[in-house]
């Protein structure tokens, strides 16, 4: 009995000493960049064993909410905070919030068409029509004229979208709003939409599962998920008129176009950007850092992590199929880190 007690108290003392030495930083937010953030925080912890950064991928909305409430030290979101949310943050916390782009992602139209090999081309009008419920058959003229050599079936189209609120949805409908006034007036822009048609899948995996299992279906998923699940996905026509397939190069090209006119707060939408090789449905994902961080220790770690992320961290992105930030954006962000008080 005495031995057990001694052992337990020794373990407790060790536990306490270990835990008090480490600094714990909490973050929450977007699910899209979760694999990248996990890798980054792991690598950073290897370099700085006394720092532990804990990230919960609860969703962009939760990230915005939690960082505003102050329950986490930083947030993450696929869709930038709008002016109302920034004002709410300022009202609640007394200072502002800064957006830092971390990586780039793309959203692709994925489909299940038995008997059709090769990639399909989608015009923005076709995608808007499909998701509005106006285009109901695969051999609709809008689809046929973009795919002259392909024999499209006469079956009905089944639309698949996200049932949960998501940054992926935000990027997709941001593009649709830009290319379709009808979409903009109707379902509009948001992370959760009143979809005119379609089945809802939970998460990128729910959507890809539904697409895989349902013939003649079409939906949208994150580029990485399509690649990893070996789902066929089509090319989308960009604003310059070329049909581009999503990959690291075309997504990075989308960001390069935006880098020229990057606003100071980094809140920019890069969908439907200009350029011949640009993939039109791409987006940054952001970390939300409060302007004023009370705890000096945490502030130092966060600024140090951001610097590391913008330099060494960017070299780790392509292995996980995330596109890295353009150099111009990185340079601008490094300067912006000094805004953190």
């Amino acid at each position, binding site marked *: 009995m005495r031995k057990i007690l001694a052992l337990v108290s020794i373990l407790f003392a060790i536990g306490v000493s270990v835990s008090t030495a480490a600094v714990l930083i909490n973050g929450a937010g977007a699910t899209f960049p979760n694999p990248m953030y996990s890798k980054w925080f792991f690598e950073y912890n290897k370099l700085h064993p006394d720092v532990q950064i804990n990230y919960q991928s609860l969703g962009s909305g939760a990230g915005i909410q939690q960082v505003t409430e102050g329950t986490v030290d930083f947030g993450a979101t696929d869709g930038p905070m709008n002016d109302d949310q920034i004002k709410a943050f300022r009202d609640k916390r007394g200072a502002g919030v800064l957006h830092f782009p971390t990586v780039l992602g793309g959203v692709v139209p994925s489909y299940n068409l038995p008997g059709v090999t090769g990639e399909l081309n989608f015009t923005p009008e076709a995608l808007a029509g499909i998701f509005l419920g106006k285009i109901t058959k695969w051999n609709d003229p809008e689809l046929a004229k973009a795919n002259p050599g392909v024999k499209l079936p006469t079956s009905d189209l089944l639309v698949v979208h996200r*049932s949960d609120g998501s940054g992926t949805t935000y990027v997709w409908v941001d593009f649709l709003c830009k290319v379709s006034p009808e979409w903009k007036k109707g*379902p509009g822009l948001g*992370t959760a939409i009143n979809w005119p048609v379609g089945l*809802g899948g939970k998460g990128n995996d729910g959507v890809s*599962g539904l697409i895989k*299992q349902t013939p003649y279906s079409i939906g949208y998923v994150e580029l990485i998920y399509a690649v990893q699940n070996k789902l066929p996905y089509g090319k989308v026509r960009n604003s310059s008129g070329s049909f581009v397939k999503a990959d690291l190069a075309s997504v990075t090209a989308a960001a390069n176009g935006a880098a020229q006119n990057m606003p100071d707060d980094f809140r920019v939408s890069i969908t439907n950007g200009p350029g011949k090789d640009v993939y039109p449905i791409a987006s940054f994902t952001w970390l939300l850092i409060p302007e004023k961080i009370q705890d000096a220790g945490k502030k130092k770690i966060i600024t140090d992590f951001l610097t590391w992320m913008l330099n060494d961290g960017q070299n780790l992105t392509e292995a996980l199929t995330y596109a890295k930030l353009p150099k111009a954006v990185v340079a601008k962000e490094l300067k912006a880190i000094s805004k953190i008080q």
Partner: protein
Amino acid sequence: MAYSLTLLAAGTIFLITAVIFYELYAQSVLPRHKFGWHFLVTQTWDPVAGQFGALPFIYGTVVTSMVAMLIAVPQGIGSAIFLSELAPPRISDALTFMIELLAAVPSVLYGLIGFYVLVPILQADLVPVLRGSLGFLPIFQGAFYGVSYFSAGVVLSIMIVPFIISVSREVLMAVPREQREAALALGSTRWQTTWRVVLPFAFKGIMGSIFLALARALGETMAVTMVVGNTPQIKASLLAPGYSIAAVIANEFTEAVGDLYKSSLIELGLVLFTVTFLINGLARLLILATRRGTAA
């Protein structure tokens, strides 16, 4: 001493229920003031425009639970009768053990199995057969994409059957031997004994298990959201995709930005709480009424 301790234990249950109800009511002030009773009869769920209506979810919750109960109750009670009355003790014990294992399977796993195993089977084999024989009924019309009220109902029935079986079996086995022996002595057959003597005696317990199963079916989240199609619409056909209250809360709560959106989801929770309460209450009243007729 025993009295006050057990009173305290029972009292905390009452307290927890009251707190949950109060919190749901208090946090849903915004949509209650904005929409009033329209919330319960509106079909639109539009977070972008700020229009919220609960009707498709209430419909989906009730329909999937009813389908589940229709499948699970006969199956559950039948199995319980077999296990308590008719099976040799060895088989009865082994099967009961397996059924209790079924009850321990997490709901997400049921959802995965439902989506990857059950839905393809329904699509390829079961539903065509169903449509072949009963296709003229409006509840089996329309396109079938695998995910539907029906699929959700079937998955739910598998999940709730263990509750019905284990509790009913215990209750049936607790019926005194004298009752059975008296019935047999009066010349009844095995089936007559079971149907007319044992079951009525165990009626209350079996009803309790059915309510437990119903409560689980109404509140089940993950398994339902993976096979119901997540489409907020009201269709007569069971083969159409639908939505349920628990599923929409699970799907949208974390990303719900904005007080009205969040509070509307909380109001949905309040609706579910109330619906469960009402269904339970109505069912108990119904039983009370029928029992009074057949005074036991």
